[in-house]
């Protein structure tokens, strides 16, 4: 079929152009028979591709489909925020990009003093953004978990500001093509730095409150589906529980075995309850009595700190518009609690 079509095409062209047949420079490829070499040829191409590896990822600007100004405009609009154009541009510039550009100019023999590059990296903005985010997250967590210890608040804050969380956010807000880094795709650290710099740029473009709302809407929801008690590792839960109960003037925790089952087997189960002043304050199962007791202490702490699974959800979205945060207030820390209990032991409860 291909052969006939080619022949017909050739004759059509010759008729159309009204030229003598010999002068027409058309060379159709004829395949009159089964192409025996084709399979081997394709196989060779395939092997060569395997050897050469995949095509390196290229920035869309190299493919000719890129409008940097339009992308920057859309980036701000996507979040419903008004950015200062120059600040937003600066938020994406990495330090290594500037070094690379300067070296490129030096190689070309362009004097950097007479023709300055005019680029500022995003590290100042990132520092500012990190400060704002960190301050707001701590205040928000203290507002949401007023009975949790300061150490726990710091642990949850560290999770939200961790490499892993910020990288997840950075990779999902469309920074990949916008980051100006020496290499493409940009390294992980560039995503984190740029995300922080975007917060900083927003604070400078508008105000700090606006940047804080941005933090609340983007970073805080990453806590959803996470157990905050798992994020904070308590080394000695029973010791902490004793100190807590003592500071409240309640009796010390007394463990009691509530239930046990299959004791002599590998599937053994012990259910331990903790009582203070004959009142059940926490209970938990475990493989051994010791584990169950420790888990019961953790359960009791959860109840005392009001961080159980049945707690109220975080105030976010439309409800969170009216909340007023106190940035200076700090939750009680374990160190304060231990100091209190030591003082009580030394001087009695009257003081």
């Amino acid at each position, binding site marked *: 079929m291909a052969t006939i079509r080619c022949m017909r095409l050739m004759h059509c062209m010759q008729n159309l152009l009204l030229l003598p047949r010999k002068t027409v420079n058309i060379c159709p490829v004829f395949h009159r028979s089964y192409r025996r070499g084709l399979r081997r040829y394709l196989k060779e191409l395939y092997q060569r591709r395997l050897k050469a590896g995949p095509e390196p990822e290229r920035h869309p600007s190299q493919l000719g*489909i890129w*409008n940097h100004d*339009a*992308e920057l*405009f*859309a*980036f701000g*609009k*996507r*979040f*419903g925020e008004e950015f200062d154009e120059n600040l937003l541009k600066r938020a994406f510039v990495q330090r290594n990009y500037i070094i690379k550009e300067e070296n490129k100019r030096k190689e070309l023999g362009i004097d950097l003093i007479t023709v300055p590059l005019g680029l500022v990296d995003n590290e100042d903005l990132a520092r500012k953004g990190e400060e704002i985010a960190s301050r707001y997250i701590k205040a928000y967590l203290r507002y949401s978990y007023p009975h949790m210890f300061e150490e726990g608040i710091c642990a949850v804050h560290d999770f939200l500001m961790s490499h892993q969380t910020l990288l*997840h*956010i950075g*990779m*999902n*807000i*469309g920074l*990949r093509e916008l980051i100006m880094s020496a290499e493409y795709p940009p390294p992980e650290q560039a995503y984190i730095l740029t995300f922080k710099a975007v917060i900083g740029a927003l604070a400078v473009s508008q105000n700090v409150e606006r940047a804080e709302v941005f933090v*609340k*809407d*983007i970073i*805080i*929801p*990453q806590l*959803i*589906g996470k157990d905050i008690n798992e994020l904070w590792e308590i080394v000695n839960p029973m010791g902490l529980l004793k100190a807590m109960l003592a500071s409240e003037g309640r009796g010390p925790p007394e463990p009691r075995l*509530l*239930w046990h*089952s299959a004791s002599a087997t590998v599937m053994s189960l012990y*259910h331990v*309850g903790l009582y203070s002043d004959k009142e059940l304050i926490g209970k938990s*199962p475990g493989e051994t009595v010791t584990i169950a007791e420790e888990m019961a202490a953790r359960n009791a702490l959860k109840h005392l700190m009001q961080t159980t*699974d*049945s707690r109220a959800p975080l105030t*976010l*979205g439309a409800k969170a518009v009216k909340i007023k945060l106190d940035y200076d207030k700090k939750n009680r820390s374990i160190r304060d609690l231990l100091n209190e209990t030591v003082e009580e032991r030394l001087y009695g409860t009257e003081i």
Partner: protein
Amino acid sequence: MGSRLIPSNFVKNVMQNGIGRYICQLQRVTIEFCKSNGSSRGTRDFIENYLLDFAKSNPGIVMYLRPRRHKHPHLRAEYLNGYKESIPVANMSKDEVAQWLGILRGRTGVQIVRLRKPWHTDNPSIQGIWHPFMFKDPSINSKPFPKKLPAYKSDKMSATEYVLQLKQEQLKITN
């Protein structure tokens, strides 16, 4: 192809979108079309009539137009998470193209797979999962073990009882 081989997943929300604020996940659309070919007729009409309005109402989406001579038209979409989707829109009317663009705009950028459940939760129960001791009262722990064990009662006489009865009758006769 069995249902086990088809990729499946649970309903997902990218980055908890919409809980704080809604961010449209579609970031870039390249409309590839031919300026002369008939299959791009509807796409060209779409560009003439609807594209500006669409771009104005969605400032967060960057629109690129890419004339490709003698090629079928495509909508090439890129999402915030890096996922790329291409919709062939050859021979479609301008309204159909607009509908496809609407579908692309509403998506999260997560690949379409078979959903195992139409809902998903990370916390199946906020009260804690059920266990055999859940509603048992601990007070029954302190109950003493009954001294007299319950015995099986049959309406028929047992062999022991029968022998005892015979013995008693024998004793009566001897007395």
